[in-house]
């Protein structure tokens, strides 16, 4: 790759604009190479080459370009693309957004230096994810099942309790019948100090800290730095999962902040913008993150991803949730309307989806009636919700008796099935049984989505 290891120093910065810096008269600079920068006051920063011609390099500066000038800013080209030194000892430690320890502990002595961009997993090497993860949340386990190696984001709105849900999942997630716990990697991008404290307190309280690795880029840290944060986290995850054989759960929050940073760089480079000002390559860029979840045929470990993103204006068609949904294997959508009713967790099951559900459930994995119950709950709740809109216009009396049952069902579903407390850890069997007890509200002839034999077996009998 880069045989030219002699380092090259230049003080020929010709332009500084936004997060970018242009250096002239350079030689032998590689695309994407990492650059060490020294500000006029002697402060050290780092950057990365975004574009290079024979003698000019465009560099994005991770820690911000304030105080940089064209006179006496020093740049040193390292000849290396961005790397992270990984080791088992990273567990239980806290790093900043670009992988430097910030918990006062010792430097990490790396076992391996890995390129943070990774390489694409060969589709022929993948193993299809199909091991059920029980999160203890009914709306997820029962209707949007998560499996090992899946990427399943939470689409939320500002002020909704996505953080509570994330920590609850991190705490409760387990694979039925297996006793290896998840190693959790937590990557924060642009979250507030308060949010960060919330997460850390919860991890401490539940003793999760020793299986936890944290990469923390806060709201007041440089925005550009957070371009690297998820890549640092996922490179570490790959090492844990595929070298050390661990089951890894990666929580990435908040992907919206990551995308804003991408947009900022793109704007500074005066690129032709795609939809709503976000760069045209944002899909590819996000795929480079999300596709790093998965399992490999013949290897023990797995990477399960749970990215969290706040939808600007609660708009699911906004490019950030939209492109994410096009890449991930489903989404858990939180709803302001449901939250306003005081329901926790305010999961709206209708737009939520787990695409890997069908492989992860059923007789040998959860229970034979699982898919039928889930389908039936979905269609009944969807119908109940539609009728609610109708009632708002024509009044409840105008409904048939059948329709009124569906209304009643929708209400009970929200009160009992969706609603659970922040430390309530339901088993999948409790969840399914709860589902049956709600289906009891409907006329039996309406239960078209479940097989007759399961109705016989599981529907509570009149007594």
């Amino acid at each position, binding site marked *: 790759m880069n045989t030219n290891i002699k380092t090259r120093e230049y003080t020929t910065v010709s332009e500084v604009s936004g997060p970018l810096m242009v250096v002239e008269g350079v030689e032998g600079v590689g695309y994407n190479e990492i650059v060490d920068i020294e500000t006029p006051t002697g402060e050290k920063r780092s950057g990365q080459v975004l574009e290079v011609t024979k003698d000019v390099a465009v560099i994005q500066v991770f820690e911000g370009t304030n105080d940089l000038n064209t006179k006496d800013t020093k740049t040193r080209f390292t000849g290396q693309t961005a790397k992270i030194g990984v080791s088992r000892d990273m567990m239980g430690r806290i790093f900043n957004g670009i992988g430097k320890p910030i918990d006062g502990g010792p430097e990490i002595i790396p076992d391996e230096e890995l390129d943070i961009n990774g390489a694409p997993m060969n589709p022929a090497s993948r193993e299809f994810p199909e091991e059920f993860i029980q999160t203890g949340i009914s709306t997820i386990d029962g209707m949007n099942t998560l499996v090992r190696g899946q990427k399943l984001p939470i689409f939320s709105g500002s002020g909704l309790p996505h953080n509570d849900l994330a920590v609850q999942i991190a705490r409760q997630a387990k694979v039925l019948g297996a006793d290896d716990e998840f190693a959790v990697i937590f990557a924060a991008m642009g979250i507030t100090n308060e949010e960060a404290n919330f997460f850390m307190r919860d991890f401490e309280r539940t003793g999760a800290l020793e299986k936890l690795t944290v990469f923390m880029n806060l709201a007041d840290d440089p925005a550009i730095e957070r371009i690297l944060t998820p890549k640092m986290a996922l490179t570490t995850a790959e090492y844990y999962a595929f070298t050390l054989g661990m089951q890894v759960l990666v929580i990435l929050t908040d992907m919206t902040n990551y995308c804003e940073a991408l947009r900022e760089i793109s704007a500074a480079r005066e690129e032709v913008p795609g939809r709503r000002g976000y760069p045209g390559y944002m*899909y590819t860029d996000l795929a480079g993150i999300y596709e790093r979840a998965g399992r490999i045929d013949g290897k023990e470990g797995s990477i399960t991803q749970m990215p969290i993103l706040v939808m600007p204006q609660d708009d699911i068609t906004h490019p950030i949730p939209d492109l994410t949904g096009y890449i991930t294997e489903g989404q858990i959508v939180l709803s302001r309307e449901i939250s306003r009713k005081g329901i926790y967790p305010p999961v709206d099951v209708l737009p939520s989806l787990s695409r890997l559900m069908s492989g992860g459930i059923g007789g040998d994995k959860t229970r034979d009636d699982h898919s039928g119950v889930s389908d039936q709950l979905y269609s009944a709740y969807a119908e109940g919700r539609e009728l609610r809109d109708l009632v708002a216009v024509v009044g409840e009396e105008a409904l048939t008796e059948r329709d009124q049952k569906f209304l009643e069902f929708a209400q009970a579903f929200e009160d009992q099935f969706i609603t659970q407390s922040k430390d309530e850890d339901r088993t999948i069997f409790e969840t399914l049984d709860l589902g049956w007890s709600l289906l009891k509200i409907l006329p039996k002839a309406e239960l078209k989505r479940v097989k007759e034999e399961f109705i016989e077996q599981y529907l509570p009998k009149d007594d």
Partner: protein
Amino acid sequence: MIIEGKIIKIAGPVIIADGMRGAQMLEMVRVGDEKLIGEIIELEGDTATIQVYEETAGIQPGEVVECTGGALSVELGPGVMSSIFDGIQRPLRIIREESGDFIARGIDVDSVNKEKKWTFKPVAKVGDVLKAGDVLGEVQETTAVLHKIMVPPHLEGEVTEIAAEGDYNVLEDIAEVGGEKVQMLQKWPVKRSRPYVRKLDPDVPLVTGQRAQDTFFSVAKGGAAAIPGPFGSGKTVTQQQLAKWADADIVVYIGCGERGNEMTEVLTEFPFLDDPKTGNPLMDRTVLIANTSNMPVAAREACVYTGITIAEYYRDQGYDVALMADSTSRWAEAMREISGRLEEMPGEEGYPAYLASRLAQFYERAGRVETIGSEPHVASISVVGAVSPPGGDLSEPVTQNTLRICKVFWALDASLADKRHFPSIDWLQSYSLYVDSIEGWWAENVAADWRATRDQAMSLLQKESELQEIVQLVGPDALPETDQATLETTRMLREDFLQQNAFDDVDTYCAPDKQYKMLKTILLFYKESLAAVNRGAPIANIVALPVKEEIGKIQSAITKQCSEA
């Protein structure tokens, strides 16, 4: 003379090199010390702009660019079937053997195994005078595919030598035609379509076993269909269903900028599923092209061409090929990304001005044709392209330009998907312009009144949407009982006919005959309930009849093929 230039600029997947005078447009080149694969996409003076099919991190100005003298081509011959390739036809299983579970850069592997011996059975004899496309011999490539070794498109003449039946690898001479030695392996540049004699009108449906498609919005063999829909609406499931159950001889499945796990799913599932027609494993008639979203974007741009060229090659052998491209939007975005790096003048939403023409050129390679050769055969390529409109908004350029070309439109709808109405094909928006031309096939093979039955069901569904508007104002009870009977019937059409669960062992495939009889049964219910209402029977009693519940279970109660109804 080998042309060799030097890199002067690198920006993502696009590099610029000078010293390239004499190089050709679309020529394949090797870039840098690692000899990454690239293609020349612009020439000006002695500088060439090159799109690189692999990750370019670490490449430096000054590194060498070598021309190869040929255009980006695919290798065609025995060994292609059942393979999984990346966007530039590198076999991913071999790459795995070479570089492990993550794809390294600069790997040089053969597309088709050059050592493997295939049993070649000659068909032509010495002294035969053959045209391009004529069959020299046959190789049983997989249980499902008899691979015809053809005289390559540029050649014709007398056969002066033909190999005896025996085992040969793809590079050994198996014949001499018109003075030229011929091997089993052919090469073909991906951006050029392979020749055929003429296009024929598509009038045979591609039977997919999917009720909404076959009965209402059928695509003909040789036709092109577009499936636009927001994320999670069922594009991939639909394409996989078609790849599994469509009555094509060969399936080419292109995962273009989509998920790795979806490819794995096909790879793990298809070997264990049997073709309903032949009983052979589906994998034996399937070729996969996997250039997932995290693989290099320039190779994503190439992957649809690689796929359709392979499809054309099997079509030339006389087969009906079905090609799935999931998703053409990712392909268009790859074009946009490269165009952006070239600083071309952007068109609508940043897409290059040539977006429409590239889409049209691609879909034009579909069709029912008379193949070349002395004895022309009829063969076809049907193309089904998924479209992923941002925010589900169908007014965006890729959807609009695709709809201008495709005669079949399956509109997937998010609100149906949210209700778990699958496939979420919106029956009011979708259309097929082939219904008239394939009507004859149904009349002949299924039932004389197929068209009338289908049309009656469709008009009931249209009536339903008008009635729904009234219900929204006054509630269902205020409707006349005959209209309520209509609504009960359309509910059955929606829930029992249009919905079809891809994951149900039985319902995943529904034979044309069963489709027709299900529809007939529901319409009979309609006729009888109207008659009963007119005799004064209350609608509530009719709705409560057990027969209605029974009809609801036809989907899975009757086997896939069974014609009892």
